[in-house]
């Protein structure tokens, strides 16, 4: 199936010549980029619906946020459960790991953000203050600040260093719930349901607001830090130039109309990936904007996905399962087959 896609892609390459000229990106590498099209592993998390799945900083572990109020840490390579973190009062919506793998943060519908100690599984800090459920959470680069975006339209910056339980700053510029949030070195990217992507530049002391006109479901920085990726409820993923706000690419074909689904860029910024409500993960070529892969994950909505920080590896979450996808099938092919048969 994927091969067929690629062939289609080749025939239609000329049609997008003009589009190419518009973009100011370097040509992709001549070798065919690897796509995570082989199912390596399926993990049944047994924690209700998996609301979000995230790689840790180095990509060896994954975090799954369950609707049964638990947060679980898994080994990616073996698919074993390492730790369960329970302490939330309602379903966990997002999680992030610190750069040194010593701490985790998670947010929940119970309006709290929790900072966890990885090894002990204890709650280091429970941060209350949001007025509604907290959609997204992120550490900053040094894990000194936790940033959380909530349905109450605010982003709160929590200090992990001091003993204060009040946020350092509350960013209440969003006129509607904050659905997604990403942190780079000195920037903060938030996507809001009011259809705007806001980029707070701490170094310059500026706030850049890009109007998208459709509720934003997910925002991402590109790895080179020059672009931002936004997916919105008009079933479109857009690649915007970070500095000017111009649109560099538009990726459509998937279905994202009502659910808050993730999108991401591949580790080398070659592809754009997005969840879809039709049970597939769509993967476009970043430059050409053509659909490269339509990964059939299942029949339900693909809720969350996460791309490995360095390798070609993809995590998808659908209902109660997390699936690991890789470029080449692993040596334990039987397992995969078994799993696929099970699925079928």
């Amino acid at each position, binding site marked *: 199936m994927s091969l067929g896609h690629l062939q289609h892609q080749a025939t239609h390459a000329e049609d997008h010549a003009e589009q190419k000229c518009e973009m100011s990106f370097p040509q992709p590498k001549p070798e065919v980029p690897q796509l995570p099209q082989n199912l390596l592993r399926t993990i049944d998390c047994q924690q209700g619906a998996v609301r979000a799945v995230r790689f840790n900083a180095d990509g060896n572990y994954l975090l799954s946020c369950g609707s049964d109020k638990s947060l679980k840490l898994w080994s990616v390579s073996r698919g074993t459960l390492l730790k369960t973190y329970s302490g939330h009062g309602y379903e966990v919506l997002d999680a992030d790991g610190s750069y040194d793998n010593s701490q985790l943060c998670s947010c929940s519908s119970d309006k709290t953000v929790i900072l966890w100690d990885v090894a002990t599984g204890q709650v280091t800090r429970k941060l209350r203050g949001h007025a509604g459920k907290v959609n997204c959470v992120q550490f900053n680069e040094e894990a000194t600040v936790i940033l959380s975006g909530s349905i109450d339209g605010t982003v709160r910056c929590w200090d992990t260093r001091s003993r204060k339980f009040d946020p350092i700053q509350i960013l209440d510029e969003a006129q509607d719930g904050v659905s997604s949030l990403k942190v780079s070195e000195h920037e903060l990217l938030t996507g809001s349901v009011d259809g705007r992507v806001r980029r707070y530049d701490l170094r310059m002391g500026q*706030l850049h607001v890009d109007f998208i006109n459709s509720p934003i479901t997910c925002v991402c920085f590109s790895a080179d830090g020059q672009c931002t990726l936004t997916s919105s409820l008009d079933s479109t993923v857009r690649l915007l130039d970070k500095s000017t706000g111009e649109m560099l690419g538009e990726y459509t074909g998937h279905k994202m109309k009502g659910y808050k689904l993730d999108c991401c860029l591949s580790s080398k910024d070659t592809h754009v990936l997005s969840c879809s409500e039709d049970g597939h993960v769509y993967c476009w070529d970043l430059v050409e904007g053509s659909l490269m892969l339509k990964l059939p994950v299942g029949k339900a909505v693909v809720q969350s996905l996460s791309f490995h920080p360095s390798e070609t590896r993809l995590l998808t979450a659908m209902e109660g399962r997390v699936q690991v996808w890789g470029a080449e099938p692993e040596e334990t092919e039987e397992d995969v087959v078994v799993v696929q048969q099970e699925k079928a």
Partner: protein
Amino acid sequence: MASDSDSDGDFVTFGTPLEPLEEDEPLRKPVPLHEQTVKDEKGRYQRFHGAFTGGFSAGYFNTVGTKEGWTPATFVSSRQQKAGRQNARPEDFMDEEDLGDHGIAPRQITTTADFASGRKDVIRDKARAITSLSAPIPGDTVLEDLVAPARSSMGVELLRKMGWKDGQGVGPRVKRRLCKQRADSGTRAFVSASPPNGLSGSQDEEDGEFVPENVTFAPKDVTPIDFTPKVDLHGLGYRGLNPLAALRGGPGAGHINLFTMDSDRSNSLFGEDRKGQRRRGGVAGQGFGVGAMEDDDEDIYHRDIMSNYDTVLGGEEPGDGLYGWTAPQQYNRKKKDHSKDAAYLGKILEGFTLASDKLETKTIFPPPNLPRDFRPVHYFRPVVDLSSVSPMVAQALQTSRGHMAQEEPSKGGRHQLDSAQRRELLGEATLQGPSSVFDLLKVEDRERLSGLRRPSSDTSSGPRQPTPGRPEQLCSGCRDSPAAARASAQKALSSRFTPHAEQQQQEALSVWSGPTAQAQTGQTFKPFERTPHKQARYDLYIDQLKQGDRDALELSLDPTMTEWERGRERDEFVRAALLYKPSSSSLSCRFTRGKQDDGVEADTVEVTRDQENDVDDKQAAVKMKMFGKLTRDTFEWHPDNLLCKRFNVPDPYPGSGFVGMPKVKRDKFSVFNFLTVSESPTASASPAPQGVKPSEPGKRSRWDVSGQAGNKERKEKDPVSEFLSVARIEASGSGPEASTTDGPTTDPTVEPDTEQKDEEEEEEESRPSMDLFKAIFASSSDEKSSSSSEGESEEEEEEKEEGVRSKAGTGPQISNQLNVNTTQPAPPVSTTPSQNPDVVFKMPSGPAAAPPPRDQEMEEEEFGPRLPPPSSTLTERRPSPTPSAKDDKHKKKCKEKHKAKKHGKHKKDKKQKKKNKRHKHKGKQKKSSRKEESSDSSSEGSDGNSQEDGEEGGGVSTEELLRRLKGIRGKNLQ
């Protein structure tokens, strides 16, 4: 002492009173000396030190420590304040005793040396005298006196700047003659003043002959009067013995002490007495005999000569210029001459002239004499026997016609504008139909009412023209007889207003005496800021309300006002209190208060800057895929200093005191412009037949919607808003239909039945409140309860829709569509500042070309994107696409619904999907909803497939996608 506080409330008591002695109390032993302790005002033991250790308590309990320990209080960590450098003042090293009244640096306002008068500081003089005595050389201050710093007071400095020289008098320069005359008279001082300066006096006499005519001279200097009070018991002018002088004179007999200390110099009435200088030691003073060491040629006995005194009172003009103090009559007379008067005013400032005529004094008329038989009781005219009601009636009538605010526009805030004025401001069209109850009355009745009102309130604006409205529809029973009509009208009006007011008062009381109101101490809203008295009364009222005072209103009103005024104010206060009742803290923190609520002149409100730019342009830009400059806004944003530190970034605005976005001013009335965001895209996106956008009043801002949010009863109470909405619909023609319904469902043949529209209005109004509460109060924990209430609301909704369908007899299909569509924009609009509805409405024109049913499904969502349904592991396995028997049954049940209001069903399904975890105990309704849920997913899937995803389900999806992409690209390039 404190018991009889009434009597000695005015007195100030010092010290602690002695304990009252009792008769048969045994004598207490005196406290032995070693047990007597001295404490300071804070109860600490104060230790007496020896003379060598300073004599008073030092440091912190006689240690070098402090209360804080060894860290000095002035220590500030340089991490917080880098540049803050503190200069140590002498006071920093002092104890509080030092700063007390008797310390070395008393904290009281004193005149600094610069501004001090010429008089010497008594205390300092004394101190110096003592030091001079204790100095090794007696009279050590000699040098200090000789080499005094050239310091003169500020007054002298100023005078010098103005051209004054030492030895001159102050005032305009005078001609020679006057000067001489004064010099002459100056010889005859009327008190025992200091003898005139011999030098100047002789000069005067010498210069007398050869001074030219037009040369002016400075006036003679005046010896200042010393107002040192007399504190001793000696006679006038008597100076007693000076012990210092006596001491000094003792050892150094015969030595001429040129530099006597003269510490009592300041005590002399008129300047210095030179006699001391002539004395050669010994005891100085008057009335003392000649000492053995003294020459006896001096007049030791102070002989006063009577010629030093004036014998005639006011006989001639005093020459010494002591005007004002002992001014004789003649001089007073002179003062009345204005031209001469100017001479004494000194230099007139440039640009100023003396007034030619006197300032008019205010004539104060005495109050009229009351007639003898006056009784200070007001009795009301017998025509209006309901004295307490009539002001209300008058006011109600006035406000209904909108004349009150016109009468006093200065007082009016926004709240005193009535509907007509507001309509004028907003530029809306005049309402059709009766605008007030008054119009509905018969002409005769109206006249009677106005006639009734006229005597009661003379400030009303005369008789009103009977407007030809819709006569004799209401009040058919009021035409029996004039008296009965009047009575019934009054009764009706009073019954309408008074209990209402009572109820409102109670409501205000309950609202303001709540705990949240207590917490809100900083009450910023001042509705009557224009009239401070009124505001003060209002504040009093609110205060008493907070204390739960039941009679708050009556107490706070001014008793001196007339009954009519009080009635009006009472009503105003209650209304204001209700309008600005304290909201719960969670709610109030979500909203920012406008800076100037009522300022009519203040046409600007503060708005964060990111709401500045017009959204229409951006939406157009997005539609044309012209992202970039058009869609980007860049604002100044101040990050918190600590946040910068945590991010390892220097603070971009190091000195800025605030955090976040700076605020900008905006035109007040344009608030409505940018709040109607939800409307403009619809207008542009919908392919409605209207060529022109509806005029401004036709736009429905979301405040309109949320402002009307309420239940049905409330709405019925409020006919004006109903009329308004009807008028708005009519004004905008087919506007609401075009804007609220979506492309495919737009039917130009929608019949303009007002009743039907009212119904939609109601729906619109009734809906948001639920969501508002959900958004605010629904927490994750009480999901079950909220879901149950949801179910109830659903039921209600269903009922409503049923009712609507039954009502709309002619076109059920259309009306249902209308209904469903119009209900939807409301919830997200009112709950959160969401733009969902318009986004949704816009989508048909967007690239994805989504079908409308999906949109509505989405716009039902409270907060934009949802979470997908929890996994099948919790409930059941994913339902098969083919409906089961149960589903069939259910489908049969709600077939009509499916047919008629497909959209409504979707909406409901969405809700139920969320609550699939809930228990079954809710009964039949719940069960059916559960079934619906299962059918929902299938129907959803089928929906999606039928609309769009049908192709994607097969293998042709990529081709299709690519084709679509191409199309988009092509469009984009154009």
